[in-house]
């Protein structure tokens, strides 16, 4: 690829891949060449890839959010492109979206899914190679994607921008992930599969289906990066937003609900409020989300019948969504004093609340007349970040603060004060971001549709985007606070691993020790 590629971008991508592949191969080889795990070791959970996943997630978080702040600044101060093609907004924006969703979110999901599936199945991952292949293969995908955008290599499909070769690579990685997950479940020592695993499984399965169908394309040449998507126009639009909306549903929601369902009850030391509500919510979400994608195409050239289905399912979807949020919050009953005192648990509590807020907002925005105002404006951006900052990022940080001491066998996190500071920075950043964008979006939407008494338009487009300037500055500031908070998390976690002494007592998370072998059952 590096040598034979037709275009310079493709060649550079080839170089990235070769370098990364060599590093990966080296890593995999060193794992392979390690002596086979002894019988004794096999009675331990396999946590090394989880640790790597946490670090990778944090690295992508820093990168993705830094670019987010940069993009936010670009919208207020366009000169910050410095005349570099790679630094122009159109190329940086997908680096931000993919960086945070796939890099930060995806690595957190892979890492925690490995953790949760082992603990709740009371079994070790079936082999040592495939988890590393999944984790490093996925990061190779993210790296190829992000460097590709900087070079101008993109399919333009939102959240599916990487070109055909990266897409194919991801299919290979993802199928391995699925097989690994199913193999682990098959080895489980618990008769029942825990709810968190339903969600992780839905995340893995549905993302595979979405990814494959939305990325069907014909490459111009197997030696070049460019491809043309199989579908066009209205069919392409519907496929894209069926994908795009369900990337939200199964990547940004389902997977993180899996996280919520393990770490929140664990940290709160409370039983899940209602097993039956879990069932209703899970199947409700899995079924209904798939119909809602057309709410991204209201009033467009998409036939109206599809839009109707989109509205109705989006509204019905609110019920199972709030079911999940409610289930999580009710689980905290009996542990509210902990929420007050423990910033880590508070992160998770706030995540559940923002999950409720953003799904309510989403269902509201899916109603056609509301969407006629919100669509195309910064209101959508506000909604997005209510979900991704308030829900996704909060649950990830809450999880990491719990998981890191468990998995590295530390007594506690390095600094509880820093967690507290992070919490307030994150809350402040999120709220500033949201208020700025809600104001911006609604102002924009209203300016676009304001008429004079005589029936002519009052505002020009120019006036509407000039009015956005103060909001864009405020958003960049909010995002900056959030970024600083994330940096504190990174620091705190590194310091925990390096300086906090080993825990003396095995917590009941059992991450420290041999698989706790219950009554009479043997481990593999």
């Amino acid at each position, binding site marked *: 690829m590096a040598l034979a590629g037709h275009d310079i971008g493709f060649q550079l991508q080839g170089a990235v891949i070769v370098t990364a592949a060599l590093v990966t191969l080296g890593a995999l080889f060193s794992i392979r060449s390690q002596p086979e795990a002894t019988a004794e070791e096999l009675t331990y959970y396999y946590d090394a890839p989880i640790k790597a996943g946490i670090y990778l997630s944090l690295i992508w978080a820093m990168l993705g959010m830094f670019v987010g702040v940069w993009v936010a600044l670009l919208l207020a101060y366009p000169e910050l492109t410095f005349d570099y093609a790679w630094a122009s907004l159109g190329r940086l924006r997908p680096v931000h979206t993919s960086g945070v969703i796939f890099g930060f979110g995806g690595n957190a999901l892979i890492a925690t899914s490995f953790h949760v599936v082992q*603990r*709740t199945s*009371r079994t070790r991952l079936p082999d040592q190679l495939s988890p590393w292949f999944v984790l490093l293969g996925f990061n190779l995908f993210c790296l190829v994607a992000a460097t590709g955008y900087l070079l101008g290599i993109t399919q333009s499909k939102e959240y599916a921008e990487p070109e055909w070769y990266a897409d194919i690579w991801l299919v290979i990685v993802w199928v391995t992930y699925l097989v690994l997950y199913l193999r682990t479940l098959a080895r489980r020592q*618990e*008769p*029942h599969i*825990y*709810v968190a695993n339903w969600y992780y499984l839905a995340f893995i399965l549905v993302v595979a289906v979405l990814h494959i169908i939305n990325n069907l394309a014909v490459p111009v040449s197997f030696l070049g990066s460019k491809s043309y998507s199989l579908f066009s126009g209205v069919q392409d639009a519907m496929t894209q937003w069926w994908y795009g909306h369900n990337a939200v549903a199964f990547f940004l929601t389902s997977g993180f609900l899996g996280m919520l369902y*393990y770490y929140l*009850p*664990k940290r709160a*030391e*409370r*039983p*899940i*409020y*209602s*097993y*039956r*509500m*879990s069932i*209703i919510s899970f199947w*409700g979400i899995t079924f209904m989300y798939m119909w809602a994608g057309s709410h991204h195409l209201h*009033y467009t050239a998409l*036939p*109206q*019948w599809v*839009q*109707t*289905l989109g*509205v*109705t*399912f989006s*509204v*019905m979807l*609110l*019920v*199972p969504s*709030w*079911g999940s949020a*409610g289930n999580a919050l009710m689980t905290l*009953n*009996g542990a509210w004093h902990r929420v007050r005192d423990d910033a880590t648990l508070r992160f998770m509590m706030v995540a559940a609340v923002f999950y409720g807020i953003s799904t309510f907002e989403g269902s509201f925005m899916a109603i056609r007349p509301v969407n006629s105002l919100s669509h195309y404006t910064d209101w959508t951006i506000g909604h997005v970040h209510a979900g991704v900052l308030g829900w996704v990022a909060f649950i990830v940080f809450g999880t990491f603060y719990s998981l890191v001491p468990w998995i590295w066998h530390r007594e506690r996190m390095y600094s509880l004060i820093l967690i507290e500071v992070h919490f307030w920075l994150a809350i402040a950043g999120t709220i500033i971001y949201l208020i700025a964008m809600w104001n911006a979006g609604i102002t924009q939407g209203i300016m676009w549709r304001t008429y*004079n*008494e*005589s*029936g*002519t*338009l*009052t*505002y*020009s*487009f*120019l*006036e509407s985007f000039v009015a956005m300037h103060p909001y864009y500055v405020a958003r960049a500031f909010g995002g900056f606070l959030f970024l600083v908070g994330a940096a504190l998390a990174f620091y705190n976690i590194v310091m925990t691993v390096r300086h906090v002494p080993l825990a003396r007592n095995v917590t*009941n*998370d*059992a991450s420290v020790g041999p698989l706790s072998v219950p009554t009479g059952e043997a481990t593999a």
Partner: protein
Amino acid sequence: MSVSERDKYSGHMTTGHEWNGIKELNTPVPKILIACLSAAFLFAIGYWVLMPAWPLGDTFTKGTLGFDQRKHLAQQMIESDNNQTRWTDPIEQLDFDAIRDNPQLMAIVRESGPALFEDNCAMCHGNNGDGGKYFPKLNDTSWLWGADPNAILETLAVGINSAHPDTRIALMPAFGSSGVLSAETIDSLVLYIQSISTTETSSTTETTTTAENINAGQAAYSMYCAGCHAQDGSGNIEVGAPNLTDDYWIYGGDSVALTATLTDGRSGHMPAWESRLSLSERKILTFYVLSLNGVGDNP
């Protein structure tokens, strides 16, 4: 499998399963959840009955309301057109003087002009008609095609050097690159033009040769340029030739820009708006353009 037990805090039973310490309560699904789900489902059914909703092979259910977003919009457009005929009709039919004398119409003209101008014209001519390099100022008092509102209206309809079949043509010939004039002659013409314009030019070489050159330029001017730009350089609104004696330049009044103008010629492109803007909108814009300079034409 472990056995269910009662949770001390909530009083509910657990399911009896446990995963690494996590238990679940077997709390019944809250009634409110079922109620909301049912309500949402009823809402959906109602919506499906009324609106186009379900696909049926090669067609779809049309909904009992017969609503269609395109028909609905067409209806809205007709209604608003009907409402607006109240003022669009007179604006289209009356001449400019008559409109100017009608305060009600002028109120609408003033109200509608700015956004219309900013959405369509400001990109080239600047927010206040300030113009910019290659795009003429509209807030001064000199006009390429005359200050008559009808001339401006015509410009808006057909454009200048545009794709419209009746477009106005404004062509400044390429005297240099076509070989008609030598580089020296062009140099002298540049000096001459600068001498008749009120633009301050920082003449670095105040020598007698300059004066001689200006005379040579003047001769060439009479021969090649006066036909279009008039003998005194005041321009000609018949062919859209600009006034060369004022201090405003579309393409620049420094020697480099002027040399380029004379060497390669110019023909600015102003799009035609007949197919995008209605007659009343173009008339409103005409008033707006005339009002930009803040003098006599101000409506």
